[in-house]
């Protein structure tokens, strides 16, 4: 039963990632990515990482993708881009295949176990984050502040560049 659910979720994840790749209009790619992020959150929940699953929905699907959808709608992109370069595509596909052929046999033989009973609940992650990783936490908050200030300065409308 759990296997069937896992295969459905994994299939949807892969299908939505391919959807991001294939869709012609960038807005449809964005919606496919939102579905992909939801499915990744479901996979996190299956791995008992509850806080991360909720944080994924709040941060990625609820904030970052809203920003991307805003930008696509405001710039009124319609996706009439030039044909993709099939040479680059073929080259990267060959490279990815080679990488997989090297990595996957090693991975699959080593990790056929089921893993421990680790529960990623909010309290444990909070304790770890605020005691051992407090320095990284504060630096991350400064990083976000820098990103906010930078984004406002970069995208501000001045008298010279009013197009949107």
């Amino acid at each position, binding site marked *: 039963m759990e296997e069937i659910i896992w295969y459905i979720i994994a299939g949807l994840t892969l299908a939505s990632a391919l959807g991001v790749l294939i869709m012609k209009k960038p807005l449809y790619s964005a919606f496919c990515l939102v579905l992909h992020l939801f499915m990744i959150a479901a996979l996190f929940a299956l791995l008992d990482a*509850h*806080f991360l699953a909720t*944080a994924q929905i709040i941060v990625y699907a609820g904030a970052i993708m809203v920003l991307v959808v*805003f930008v696509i709608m405001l710039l009124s992109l319609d996706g009439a881009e030039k044909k993709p370069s099939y040479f680059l595509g073929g080259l990267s596909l060959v490279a990815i295949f080679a990488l997989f052929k090297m990595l996957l046999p090693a991975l699959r033989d080593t990790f056929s176990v089921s893993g421990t009973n680790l529960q990623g609940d*909010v309290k444990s992650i909070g304790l770890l984050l605020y005691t051992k990783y407090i320095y990284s936490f504060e630096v991350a908050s400064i990083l976000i502040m820098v990103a906010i200030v930078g984004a406002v300065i970069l995208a501000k409308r001045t008298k010279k560049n009013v197009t949107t």
Partner: protein
Amino acid sequence: MEWIILLIKIIVVFNLAQGLASICVWVERKGSALIQDRIGANRAGAYFYTDNILLKPVFAVVRLLGILGIVNTLFCDAVKGLFKEDFVPKGTSNFIHSLGPFMAVFPVFLAYALIPVAPDFEIGGYKIRPQVANLDVGVLFIFAMASIAVYGVTIAGWCGNNKFSLLGGLRSAAQMISYELALGVSLVSMVILYGTLDLYDMVVKQTVLIGGFLPAWGIFTQPLAFVIFFVAGMAETKRAPFDLPESESELVAGYFTEYSGMKFLLFWLGEFAEIALLSALVVLMFFGGWDIPYVTLPGDWIGALIGHIVFVSKVVFFCILQIVVRWTLPRFRYDQLMHLGWKILLPASLLNLLITAVLKLAL
């Protein structure tokens, strides 16, 4: 047996959600009429007569409901919505057009899974907690659902395929994400106060008395958080003085424009269910849930029933409060709205968080 209990819980909570949404729709129609000094809908079903002597009381009840406007709102509006033509504007895909109302309604009903509607009770040897899903993350899940609700508005705005609808949708999405911050930070201060993310435990912690006479309700311990949470919640549901998204349809066009029939009713149902959800959250976190101040409820199913009735009446009170506020106050201009969200509510909620954290450590 566990599955049957879960199924019954789902049916009860879902019916509660739908029932509250329907009550809100009726109070909106009739209550707004009374506030605006008119009578409102009272024709449908008011002339329901019969000669059959056995059915006379039934028809009399239907006549009473008709005069109160209940038949009109609950029955006629639904039938009207079902039979209207459902058109999709040219240039947008059918799928995305249908996705709009779905994304607006789906997170609201999913968030109802976390609401405990009655105290714990024991029946036939089974200890039952009337909460559909007892997640580890509790309140964070409701916050996640509030983040998802933005998509319904954005997709609906884009599907109108005209600039006014798009700008209206983007403005209302910007409003929703701005007020999410104040909502989240005031939620965090409540979590610090109660020391738990689970909504049931929050209510249990409010059943004690402080100083022997005052019930430890959230409204007495955190009045500022209540005000911020309520105002930010009303802005999230796009109601009350923050209904720039909806009211734009009176001026130029709003994000609702290209929707008719059942999809429009679905938007409305989602909006009223969100009003009921906000009321339920306010009652659970700030007003003691099912707690009557100086009374302890018995632990069996009678106590659960009494607790449930108390809870539902408190929720209905807050729904009526929101509807009365909506029909009383004029709406904000867009820059006033952004000023309130970013410059007043967010610093106030951060200040509240600081004070709560300091007091919690000191006491």
